[in-house]
Protein backbone atom coordinates (compact mmCIF):
# COMPACT_ATOMS: atom_id res chain seq x y z
CA UNK A 1 0.00 0.00 0.00
CA UNK A 2 2.78 2.41 0.97
CA UNK A 3 4.54 1.50 -2.27
CA UNK A 4 1.68 3.18 -4.17
CA UNK A 5 2.53 6.59 -2.73
CA UNK A 6 4.04 9.04 -5.18
CA UNK A 7 5.58 12.08 -3.56
CA UNK A 8 6.82 13.52 -6.85
CA UNK A 9 3.44 15.29 -6.93
CA UNK A 10 4.81 17.59 -4.20
CA UNK A 11 7.77 18.60 -6.36
CA UNK A 12 5.61 19.21 -9.41
CA UNK A 13 3.12 21.44 -7.59
CA UNK A 14 5.63 23.14 -5.28
CA UNK A 15 5.22 26.71 -6.68
CA UNK A 16 1.45 26.48 -6.18
CA UNK A 17 1.88 25.16 -2.62
CA UNK A 18 4.44 27.84 -1.73
CA UNK A 19 1.99 30.43 -3.02
CA UNK A 20 -0.57 29.07 -0.54
CA UNK A 21 1.96 29.08 2.26
CA UNK A 22 2.84 32.67 1.42
CA UNK A 23 -0.81 33.68 1.78
CA UNK A 24 -0.96 31.88 5.15
CA UNK A 25 2.14 33.76 6.34
CA UNK A 26 0.74 37.08 5.08
CA UNK A 27 -2.52 36.63 7.00
CA UNK A 28 -0.58 35.58 10.09
CA UNK A 29 1.70 38.63 10.04
CA UNK A 30 -1.08 41.13 9.27
CA UNK A 31 -3.43 39.63 11.88
CA UNK A 32 -0.68 39.43 14.51
CA UNK A 33 0.21 43.12 14.07
CA UNK A 34 -3.40 44.29 13.71
CA UNK A 35 -4.52 42.02 16.53
CA UNK A 36 -1.82 43.38 18.84
CA UNK A 37 -2.81 46.99 18.10
CA UNK A 38 -6.56 46.43 18.50
CA UNK A 39 -6.01 43.98 21.36
CA UNK A 40 -3.98 46.55 23.29
CA UNK A 41 -6.68 49.18 22.75
CA UNK A 42 -9.31 46.66 23.86
CA UNK A 43 -7.27 45.82 26.96
CA UNK A 44 -7.02 49.50 27.84
CA UNK A 45 -10.79 49.78 27.35
CA UNK A 46 -11.42 46.75 29.59
CA UNK A 47 -9.30 48.32 32.33
CA UNK A 48 -10.82 51.76 31.81
CA UNK A 49 -12.60 53.57 34.63
CA UNK A 50 -15.42 54.35 32.19
CA UNK A 51 -17.86 51.55 33.00
CA UNK A 52 -19.77 51.43 29.67
CA UNK A 53 -16.50 51.26 27.72
CA UNK A 54 -15.13 48.50 29.97
CA UNK A 55 -18.37 46.51 29.70
CA UNK A 56 -18.55 46.84 25.92
CA UNK A 57 -14.95 45.67 25.53
CA UNK A 58 -15.49 42.76 27.93
CA UNK A 59 -18.66 41.75 26.07
CA UNK A 60 -16.87 41.74 22.72
CA UNK A 61 -13.92 39.73 24.05
CA UNK A 62 -16.09 37.16 25.83
CA UNK A 63 -18.36 36.69 22.81
CA UNK A 64 -15.41 36.18 20.44
CA UNK A 65 -13.79 33.72 22.82
CA UNK A 66 -16.90 31.64 23.39
CA UNK A 67 -17.79 30.80 19.77
CA UNK A 68 -15.79 28.59 17.38
CA UNK A 69 -13.34 30.33 15.03
CA UNK A 70 -15.03 28.58 12.11
CA UNK A 71 -18.29 30.33 12.99
CA UNK A 72 -16.47 33.69 13.24
CA UNK A 73 -14.87 33.13 9.83
CA UNK A 74 -18.28 32.52 8.22
CA UNK A 75 -19.87 35.42 10.13
CA UNK A 76 -17.33 37.88 8.75
CA UNK A 77 -17.49 36.34 5.30
CA UNK A 78 -21.19 37.29 5.16
CA UNK A 79 -21.01 40.45 7.28
CA UNK A 80 -18.04 42.32 5.83
CA UNK A 81 -19.67 43.03 2.41
CA UNK A 82 -22.85 44.21 4.14
CA UNK A 83 -20.92 46.51 6.49
CA UNK A 84 -18.83 47.90 3.64
CA UNK A 85 -22.03 48.53 1.70
CA UNK A 86 -23.54 50.57 4.51
CA UNK A 87 -20.25 52.46 4.97
CA UNK A 88 -19.80 53.38 1.32
CA UNK A 89 -23.49 53.69 0.50
CA UNK A 90 -23.08 51.46 -2.54
CA UNK A 91 -26.15 49.96 -4.18
CA UNK A 92 -25.01 46.32 -3.92
CA UNK A 93 -22.74 44.65 -1.38
CA UNK A 94 -19.18 44.80 -2.82
CA UNK A 95 -17.72 41.46 -3.88
CA UNK A 96 -14.56 41.38 -1.80
CA UNK A 97 -14.17 37.61 -1.66
CA UNK A 98 -13.09 35.28 1.10
CA UNK A 99 -9.36 35.94 0.52
CA UNK A 100 -9.63 39.55 1.56
CA UNK A 101 -12.37 39.29 4.19
CA UNK A 102 -10.13 36.76 5.99
CA UNK A 103 -7.70 39.55 6.87
CA UNK A 104 -10.44 41.44 8.70
CA UNK A 105 -11.74 38.24 10.32
CA UNK A 106 -8.41 37.28 11.82
CA UNK A 107 -7.54 40.81 12.97
CA UNK A 108 -10.89 41.07 14.79
CA UNK A 109 -10.75 37.54 16.17
CA UNK A 110 -7.15 37.68 17.35
CA UNK A 111 -7.77 41.11 18.92
CA UNK A 112 -9.93 39.36 21.53
CA UNK A 113 -7.15 36.88 22.40
CA UNK A 114 -4.35 39.46 22.31
CA UNK A 115 -6.54 41.69 24.51
CA UNK A 116 -6.52 39.13 27.31
CA UNK A 117 -2.75 38.71 27.02
CA UNK A 118 -2.12 42.47 27.09
CA UNK A 119 -4.57 42.90 29.97
CA UNK A 120 -2.59 40.38 32.00
CA UNK A 121 0.58 42.22 30.95
CA UNK A 122 -0.73 45.62 32.02
CA UNK A 123 -2.05 44.23 35.29
CA UNK A 124 1.32 42.66 36.08
CA UNK A 125 2.99 46.11 36.17
CA UNK A 126 3.35 47.39 39.76
CA UNK A 127 0.94 50.22 40.66
CA UNK A 128 3.89 52.43 41.59
CA UNK A 129 4.85 52.67 37.92
CA UNK A 130 1.53 54.29 36.98
CA UNK A 131 1.76 56.50 40.07
CA UNK A 132 5.29 57.60 39.19
CA UNK A 133 4.21 58.36 35.63
CA UNK A 134 1.37 60.62 36.73
CA UNK A 135 3.61 62.22 39.38
CA UNK A 136 5.92 63.18 36.53
CA UNK A 137 2.96 64.95 34.95
CA UNK A 138 2.44 62.47 32.12
CA UNK A 139 -1.07 62.24 30.73
CA UNK A 140 -2.87 58.86 30.57
CA UNK A 141 -1.89 58.31 26.94
CA UNK A 142 1.73 59.39 27.46
CA UNK A 143 2.19 57.21 30.53
CA UNK A 144 0.70 54.24 28.68
CA UNK A 145 2.94 54.88 25.71
CA UNK A 146 6.18 55.57 27.58
CA UNK A 147 5.88 53.62 30.83
CA UNK A 148 3.23 50.90 31.05
CA UNK A 149 2.88 49.42 27.56
CA UNK A 150 6.60 48.96 26.77
CA UNK A 151 7.03 46.93 29.98
CA UNK A 152 3.78 45.00 29.53
CA UNK A 153 4.72 44.25 25.95
CA UNK A 154 8.15 42.93 26.85
CA UNK A 155 6.85 40.76 29.69
CA UNK A 156 4.20 39.26 27.45
CA UNK A 157 6.31 38.87 24.30
CA UNK A 158 6.69 35.06 24.62
CA UNK A 159 2.94 34.66 25.17
CA UNK A 160 2.15 36.97 22.23
CA UNK A 161 4.47 34.94 20.00
CA UNK A 162 2.98 31.63 21.16
CA UNK A 163 -0.47 33.00 20.32
CA UNK A 164 0.89 33.98 16.90
CA UNK A 165 2.01 30.37 16.30
CA UNK A 166 -1.52 29.23 17.19
CA UNK A 167 -2.84 31.87 14.77
CA UNK A 168 -0.52 30.53 12.05
CA UNK A 169 -2.14 27.11 12.51
CA UNK A 170 -5.67 28.52 12.75
CA UNK A 171 -5.42 30.29 9.38
CA UNK A 172 -5.76 26.78 7.86
CA UNK A 173 -9.51 26.94 8.64
CA UNK A 174 -10.08 29.44 5.81
CA UNK A 175 -9.47 26.56 3.40
CA UNK A 176 -13.07 25.56 4.18
CA UNK A 177 -14.17 28.79 2.43
CA UNK A 178 -12.31 27.54 -0.67
CA UNK A 179 -9.47 30.00 -0.05
CA UNK A 180 -6.07 28.95 -1.41
CA UNK A 181 -4.04 29.10 1.77
CA UNK A 182 -1.45 26.35 2.37
CA UNK A 183 -4.07 23.72 3.28
CA UNK A 184 -6.44 25.03 0.59
CA UNK A 185 -3.72 24.68 -2.07
CA UNK A 186 -2.95 21.15 -0.90
CA UNK A 187 -6.65 20.26 -0.95
CA UNK A 188 -7.06 21.49 -4.51
CA UNK A 189 -4.05 19.52 -5.75
CA UNK A 190 -5.16 16.48 -3.76
CA UNK A 191 -8.60 16.51 -5.35
CA UNK A 192 -7.41 17.24 -8.88
CA UNK A 193 -4.78 14.50 -8.95
CA UNK A 194 -6.32 12.09 -6.41
CA UNK A 195 -3.18 12.33 -4.25
CA UNK A 196 -4.92 12.98 -0.94
CA UNK A 197 -2.62 10.86 1.21
CA UNK A 198 0.62 12.37 -0.10
CA UNK A 199 -0.60 15.97 0.04
CA UNK A 200 -1.95 15.89 3.59
CA UNK A 201 1.11 14.01 4.87
CA UNK A 202 3.30 16.66 3.28
CA UNK A 203 1.23 19.50 4.78
CA UNK A 204 1.35 17.89 8.24
CA UNK A 205 5.14 17.49 8.08
CA UNK A 206 5.69 21.09 6.91
CA UNK A 207 3.48 22.51 9.68
CA UNK A 208 5.15 20.28 12.26
CA UNK A 209 8.63 21.40 11.20
CA UNK A 210 7.75 25.12 11.01
CA UNK A 211 5.75 25.32 14.25
CA UNK A 212 8.24 23.17 16.15
CA UNK A 213 11.12 25.42 15.06
CA UNK A 214 9.13 28.57 15.91
CA UNK A 215 8.03 27.32 19.33
CA UNK A 216 11.56 26.25 20.30
CA UNK A 217 12.66 29.74 19.26
CA UNK A 218 10.05 31.23 21.60
CA UNK A 219 11.21 28.94 24.41
CA UNK A 220 14.79 30.19 23.95
CA UNK A 221 13.58 33.79 23.96
CA UNK A 222 11.65 33.10 27.16
CA UNK A 223 14.79 31.99 29.03
CA UNK A 224 16.62 35.04 27.68
CA UNK A 225 13.97 37.44 28.93
CA UNK A 226 13.76 35.62 32.26
CA UNK A 227 17.48 36.29 32.87
CA UNK A 228 17.08 40.03 32.40
CA UNK A 229 14.43 40.27 35.11
Amino acid at each position, binding site marked *: MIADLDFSIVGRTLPYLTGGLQYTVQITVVAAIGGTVFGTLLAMARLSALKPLALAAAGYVNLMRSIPLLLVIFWFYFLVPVILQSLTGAERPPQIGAERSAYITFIMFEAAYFCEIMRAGIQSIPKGQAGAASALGLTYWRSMQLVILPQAFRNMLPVLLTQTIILFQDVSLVSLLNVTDFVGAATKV*AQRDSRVVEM*YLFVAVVYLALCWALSSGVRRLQTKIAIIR
Partner: protein
Amino acid sequence: MLAAGLQWTLIVAALAWIAAFVLGSVIGVARTTDRAWLVRLGNGYVELFRNIPLIVQFFVWFFVVPGVIPPVKRWVVSVDPLTFQLVTSVVCLGLFTAARLAEQVRAGIQSLARGQRDAGYALGLSQVQTYRYVLLPMAYRIIIPPLTSELMNLIKNTAVAYSIGLTELFFRTREMGEMTFRYFEAFGAATVIYAAIAFASNRLMALLERRVAVPGYIGAHK
Protein backbone atom coordinates in the same frame (compact mmCIF):
# COMPACT_ATOMS: atom_id res chain seq x y z
CA MET B 1 -32.36 20.71 12.61
CA LEU B 2 -29.90 22.61 14.80
CA ALA B 3 -30.92 20.42 17.71
CA ALA B 4 -29.94 17.32 15.75
CA GLY B 5 -26.56 18.93 15.10
CA LEU B 6 -26.19 19.97 18.73
CA GLN B 7 -26.69 16.36 19.77
CA TRP B 8 -23.63 15.18 17.77
CA THR B 9 -21.59 18.17 18.97
CA LEU B 10 -22.24 17.24 22.59
CA ILE B 11 -21.74 13.49 22.10
CA VAL B 12 -18.43 13.96 20.28
CA ALA B 13 -17.26 16.51 22.86
CA ALA B 14 -18.17 14.23 25.78
CA LEU B 15 -16.49 11.11 24.34
CA ALA B 16 -13.40 13.05 23.23
CA TRP B 17 -13.17 14.66 26.69
CA ILE B 18 -13.16 11.26 28.41
CA ALA B 19 -10.51 9.93 26.03
CA ALA B 20 -8.42 13.09 26.37
CA PHE B 21 -8.69 13.07 30.16
CA VAL B 22 -7.45 9.48 30.50
CA LEU B 23 -4.70 9.73 27.88
CA GLY B 24 -3.69 13.27 28.90
CA SER B 25 -3.32 12.17 32.53
CA VAL B 26 -1.14 9.19 31.58
CA ILE B 27 1.10 11.33 29.35
CA GLY B 28 1.20 14.19 31.85
CA VAL B 29 2.28 11.78 34.60
CA ALA B 30 4.86 10.17 32.29
CA ARG B 31 6.47 13.57 31.78
CA THR B 32 7.00 14.02 35.54
CA THR B 33 8.56 10.61 36.27
CA ASP B 34 12.31 10.16 36.66
CA ARG B 35 12.61 7.90 33.60
CA ALA B 36 14.21 9.88 30.80
CA TRP B 37 12.67 7.81 27.99
CA LEU B 38 9.15 8.24 29.39
CA VAL B 39 9.66 12.00 29.68
CA ARG B 40 10.99 12.18 26.12
CA LEU B 41 8.13 10.07 24.78
CA GLY B 42 5.58 12.31 26.54
CA ASN B 43 7.27 15.49 25.31
CA GLY B 44 7.37 14.10 21.78
CA TYR B 45 3.66 13.34 21.87
CA VAL B 46 2.80 16.85 23.03
CA GLU B 47 5.04 18.50 20.40
CA LEU B 48 3.58 16.32 17.63
CA PHE B 49 -0.06 17.08 18.40
CA ARG B 50 0.40 20.76 19.25
CA ASN B 51 2.35 21.73 16.15
CA ILE B 52 -0.05 20.50 13.46
CA PRO B 53 -3.26 22.45 12.79
CA LEU B 54 -6.41 20.66 13.94
CA ILE B 55 -7.97 20.59 10.48
CA VAL B 56 -4.83 18.92 9.07
CA GLN B 57 -5.03 16.35 11.87
CA PHE B 58 -8.66 15.71 10.88
CA PHE B 59 -7.58 15.14 7.26
CA VAL B 60 -4.76 12.85 8.36
CA TRP B 61 -7.14 10.65 10.38
CA PHE B 62 -9.84 10.76 7.73
CA PHE B 63 -7.83 10.35 4.51
CA VAL B 64 -4.25 9.37 5.28
CA VAL B 65 -4.69 6.69 7.97
CA PRO B 66 -7.17 4.55 5.97
CA GLY B 67 -5.03 5.18 2.89
CA VAL B 68 -1.85 3.68 4.31
CA ILE B 69 -3.22 1.04 6.71
CA PRO B 70 -5.21 -1.61 4.77
CA PRO B 71 -7.07 -3.09 7.82
CA VAL B 72 -8.41 0.39 8.66
CA LYS B 73 -9.46 0.79 5.04
CA ARG B 74 -11.36 -2.52 5.15
CA TRP B 75 -13.11 -1.42 8.34
CA VAL B 76 -14.01 1.99 6.88
CA VAL B 77 -15.63 0.41 3.84
CA SER B 78 -17.62 -2.00 6.02
CA VAL B 79 -19.26 0.63 8.29
CA ASP B 80 -21.64 3.44 7.39
CA PRO B 81 -20.13 6.92 6.80
CA LEU B 82 -21.61 8.45 9.96
CA THR B 83 -19.90 5.87 12.17
CA PHE B 84 -16.58 6.53 10.48
CA GLN B 85 -17.01 10.31 10.84
CA LEU B 86 -17.92 9.97 14.51
CA VAL B 87 -15.00 7.67 15.30
CA THR B 88 -12.58 9.93 13.40
CA SER B 89 -13.86 13.02 15.24
CA VAL B 90 -13.60 11.42 18.67
CA VAL B 91 -10.13 9.96 18.01
CA CYS B 92 -8.83 13.17 16.44
CA LEU B 93 -10.23 15.57 19.06
CA GLY B 94 -9.39 13.14 21.88
CA LEU B 95 -5.71 12.82 20.92
CA PHE B 96 -5.45 16.56 20.14
CA THR B 97 -6.96 17.59 23.48
CA ALA B 98 -4.92 14.94 25.33
CA ALA B 99 -1.73 16.79 24.34
CA ARG B 100 -3.10 19.97 25.89
CA LEU B 101 -4.32 18.22 29.04
CA ALA B 102 -0.94 16.46 29.38
CA GLU B 103 0.66 19.90 29.52
CA GLN B 104 -1.77 21.00 32.28
CA VAL B 105 -1.39 17.79 34.30
CA ARG B 106 2.40 18.07 34.12
CA ALA B 107 2.26 21.72 35.25
CA GLY B 108 -0.09 20.77 38.10
CA ILE B 109 2.16 18.00 39.39
CA GLN B 110 5.27 20.14 39.08
CA SER B 111 3.60 22.98 41.01
CA LEU B 112 3.45 20.72 44.08
CA ALA B 113 6.24 21.00 46.62
CA ARG B 114 8.97 18.38 46.22
CA GLY B 115 8.23 17.32 49.82
CA GLN B 116 4.85 15.88 48.81
CA ARG B 117 6.48 13.22 46.67
CA ASP B 118 9.19 12.54 49.24
CA ALA B 119 6.58 12.25 51.98
CA GLY B 120 4.75 9.66 49.89
CA TYR B 121 7.91 7.60 49.47
CA ALA B 122 8.81 8.04 53.17
CA LEU B 123 5.42 6.53 54.07
CA GLY B 124 6.47 3.46 52.11
CA LEU B 125 4.13 4.09 49.15
CA SER B 126 5.28 2.85 45.76
CA GLN B 127 5.65 5.31 42.90
CA VAL B 128 2.24 4.36 41.52
CA GLN B 129 0.63 4.74 44.95
CA THR B 130 2.34 8.11 45.50
CA TYR B 131 0.80 9.40 42.27
CA ARG B 132 -2.59 7.84 43.03
CA TYR B 133 -2.99 8.96 46.64
CA VAL B 134 -0.72 12.00 47.06
CA LEU B 135 0.20 13.86 43.88
CA LEU B 136 -2.77 13.46 41.51
CA PRO B 137 -5.57 14.33 44.00
CA MET B 138 -3.78 17.63 44.66
CA ALA B 139 -2.76 18.31 41.06
CA TYR B 140 -6.25 17.79 39.61
CA ARG B 141 -7.77 20.20 42.10
CA ILE B 142 -5.19 22.87 41.34
CA ILE B 143 -5.56 22.70 37.54
CA ILE B 144 -9.35 22.96 37.35
CA PRO B 145 -9.30 26.55 35.92
CA PRO B 146 -7.08 25.63 32.93
CA LEU B 147 -9.07 22.40 32.51
CA THR B 148 -12.19 24.57 32.22
CA SER B 149 -10.75 26.51 29.30
CA GLU B 150 -9.58 23.28 27.67
CA LEU B 151 -13.11 21.87 27.91
CA MET B 152 -14.49 25.03 26.32
CA ASN B 153 -11.81 24.82 23.61
CA LEU B 154 -12.78 21.23 22.92
CA ILE B 155 -16.44 22.13 22.49
CA LYS B 156 -15.50 24.92 20.08
CA ASN B 157 -13.10 22.61 18.23
CA THR B 158 -15.89 20.13 17.46
CA ALA B 159 -16.95 22.62 14.76
CA VAL B 160 -13.87 21.60 12.76
CA ALA B 161 -15.46 18.13 12.35
CA TYR B 162 -17.55 19.96 9.73
CA SER B 163 -14.49 19.60 7.48
CA ILE B 164 -14.98 15.81 7.26
CA GLY B 165 -18.73 16.17 6.86
CA LEU B 166 -19.92 15.24 10.34
CA THR B 167 -23.42 16.68 10.72
CA GLU B 168 -22.64 18.53 13.96
CA LEU B 169 -24.00 21.93 14.97
CA PHE B 170 -21.88 24.03 12.60
CA PHE B 171 -22.64 21.75 9.64
CA ARG B 172 -26.36 22.05 10.34
CA THR B 173 -26.03 25.83 10.68
CA ARG B 174 -24.51 26.16 7.21
CA GLU B 175 -27.08 23.76 5.79
CA MET B 176 -29.90 25.78 7.31
CA GLY B 177 -28.44 29.01 5.89
CA GLU B 178 -28.11 27.51 2.43
CA MET B 179 -31.60 26.02 2.39
CA THR B 180 -33.45 29.12 3.60
CA PHE B 181 -31.04 31.89 2.49
CA ARG B 182 -31.43 33.24 6.00
CA TYR B 183 -27.72 33.16 6.84
CA PHE B 184 -27.87 35.78 9.57
CA GLU B 185 -30.65 34.02 11.46
CA ALA B 186 -28.91 30.65 11.20
CA PHE B 187 -25.52 31.97 12.30
CA GLY B 188 -27.15 34.07 15.01
CA ALA B 189 -28.88 30.99 16.43
CA ALA B 190 -25.63 29.01 16.34
CA THR B 191 -23.78 31.85 18.06
CA VAL B 192 -26.34 31.88 20.85
CA ILE B 193 -26.16 28.09 21.26
CA TYR B 194 -22.35 27.97 21.32
CA ALA B 195 -22.20 30.90 23.76
CA ALA B 196 -24.79 29.17 25.98
CA ILE B 197 -22.81 25.90 26.02
CA ALA B 198 -19.61 27.79 26.83
CA PHE B 199 -21.37 29.66 29.63
CA ALA B 200 -22.97 26.50 31.05
CA SER B 201 -19.75 24.48 31.04
CA ASN B 202 -17.93 27.42 32.60
CA ARG B 203 -20.47 27.63 35.46
CA LEU B 204 -20.41 23.86 35.96
CA MET B 205 -16.64 23.82 36.27
CA ALA B 206 -16.74 26.86 38.62
CA LEU B 207 -19.12 24.89 40.84
CA LEU B 208 -16.77 21.91 40.81
CA GLU B 209 -13.86 24.24 41.48
CA ARG B 210 -15.53 25.56 44.66
CA ARG B 211 -16.51 22.08 45.82
CA VAL B 212 -13.01 20.65 45.62
CA ALA B 213 -10.93 23.75 46.41
CA VAL B 214 -7.90 22.89 48.53
CA PRO B 215 -8.37 24.48 52.00
CA GLY B 216 -5.62 26.95 52.78
CA TYR B 217 -4.93 27.90 49.16
CA ILE B 218 -5.66 31.44 47.92
CA GLY B 219 -8.43 30.07 45.70
CA ALA B 220 -10.33 28.49 48.62
CA HIS B 221 -13.21 30.57 50.00
CA LYS B 222 -13.55 28.88 53.38
